[in-house]
């Protein structure tokens, strides 16, 4: 009989994220469930993931690009070339981060009923949230690519790699912080508010709406290095490099050492946050069932 050949094991002790890789089937179903439930009964369906960022983009474009003069025009020669593309390429990445982290932070409490009753690798829930956000991100990147092609984009292999690197950095960061706050949220339900604040800061603490040169002008070298060390900043700048920079005449400078220094720094920091998130999650998850 097979049961006698198996070892005795301690239930409830998972291997963390390694278990998520092992439960790909369940992860797939959780992601599918989330997508189905979200768009159930909505006529526009997945279109909603175009409408919201679309409106947001128009608002920012008019307010910042036109009124505050960030867009380059004959009357405003100091502005940014193709500000619309600049803005959109950053905004979709930030939106991905915002949605991923926001949902991941709530995922454990939302699935409390299940977590209280059945043992399964609980890391699945934050990871599934990030995954769902990536699915929403995809149509937006298609729109971006179309816009870039119309503004004279010639994608190269290097640009493509930069975009992948930027996305990876932000996704790792969202997963790490999602694990951290997802677990913290079980113990203190108002840590959601901290997440909301973080997300608001995230939009403004990276060069999504403005140019990095403005930051460098105001901050000293040290403070600017701190600014650059933010993985989201690196991710956004990599997206600018991949999508926006090739559509300009190349006169707008890219941040110095973006590839030699800040890309690895961003990756390492995001990875460390993921490790920290995983460690915290595992320390706290033993008592999820009784705290939920």
């Amino acid at each position, binding site marked *: *009989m097979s049961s006698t050949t198996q*070892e005795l094991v301690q239930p409830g002790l998972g291997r963390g994220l390694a278990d998520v890789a092992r439960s790909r*089937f369940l992860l797939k*179903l959780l992601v599918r469930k989330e997508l*189905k439930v979200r768009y159930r009964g909505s006529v526009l369906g997945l279109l909603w993931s175009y409408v919201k960022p679309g409106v947001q983009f128009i608002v920012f474009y008019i307010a910042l690009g036109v009124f505050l003069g960030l867009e380059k025009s004959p009357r405003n020669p100091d502005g940014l070339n193709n500000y619309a593309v600049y803005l959109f390429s950053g905004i979709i990445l930030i939106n991905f981060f915002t949605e991923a982290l926001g949902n991941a932070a709530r995922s454990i409490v939302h699935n409390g009923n*299940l977590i209280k009753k059945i043992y399964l690798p609980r890391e699945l829930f934050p990871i599934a949230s990030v995954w769902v956000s990536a699915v929403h991100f995809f149509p937006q990147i298609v729109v971006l690519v179309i816009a870039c092609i119309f503004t004279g984009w010639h994608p190269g292999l290097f640009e493509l790699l930069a975009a992948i690197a930027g996305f990876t950095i932000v996704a790792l960061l969202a997963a790490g912080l999602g694990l951290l706050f997802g677990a913290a949220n079980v113990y203190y339900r108002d840590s959601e508010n901290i997440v909301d604040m973080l997300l608001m800061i995230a939009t403004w603490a990276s060069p999504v709406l403005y140019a990095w040169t403005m930051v460098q002008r105001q901050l000293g070298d040290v403070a600017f290095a701190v600014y650059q060390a933010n993985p989201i900043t690196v991710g956004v700048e990599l997206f600018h490099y991949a999508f926006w920079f090739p559509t300009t005449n190349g006169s707008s400078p890219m941040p110095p050492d973006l590839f030699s220094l800040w890309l690895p720094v961003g990756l390492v920091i995001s990875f460390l946050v993921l490790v920290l998130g995983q460690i915290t999650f595992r320390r706290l998850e033993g008592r999820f069932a009784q705290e939920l």
Partner: protein
Amino acid sequence: MANAIEVSGISKQFVLRHTRSIKETVVWLAKGRRGDLSKKFHALKDVSLDVEAGETVALLGLNGSGKSTLLKHISGVMLPDSGTVRTRGRVAGLIEVGAGFHHDLSGRDNVYLNGAILGMTEQEVNDRFDAIVEFAEIGEFIDTEVRFYSSGMYLRLAFSVAVHTDPEVFLIDEILAVGDEPFQRKCIGKIQELAERGKTLVVVSHDLDLVSRICARGVLLEQGNVLFDGPISEAVSRLRS
């Protein structure tokens, strides 16, 4: 026979925290109301229990005696403060049927989702899908959203998924009281069939007549302590006395 479940000396203390808000925690700490933050009580005190493969065990006791907590430790949902729990083979819990069900998904989606939650692989769900639907007597409603199911249909489908996970150890918490008479009989029949096939069963129920029929061994718990561990008839009569 080898042990399917080894519970050795586990204790569990629950901390009842009276606030879930950082703000209130800080305010209470500042006001010197630290004692108000939490209260502790023992749900399990040095409980040991060995279950051999193929045994059918009922956990008995009044409300709050620690039966469900013990079951949650065996399933791995909870971890003990001290002591160890070890199990052999796949453990599936019918700990509240349908916990993994989502109302907005169809029966079919829920079968897949719940099967995966209970540890089945894609291949296993595919292979057993027809058997699951047939046992649940859902028929054509399998592609209807679960929200439109009657509570009986819902329960039948959830139970059906769980019994088809084919675990070595089966944990059942207070689920047999639901469903109509014929289906209840069918469930009990299925559970008895599992027991005959050498599966290990651990059942929590207040229905003493029912557990007497299914289980051979009874473990009586009171306030987190094991009072009695022996033949079911004796355990039941002790609880009734």
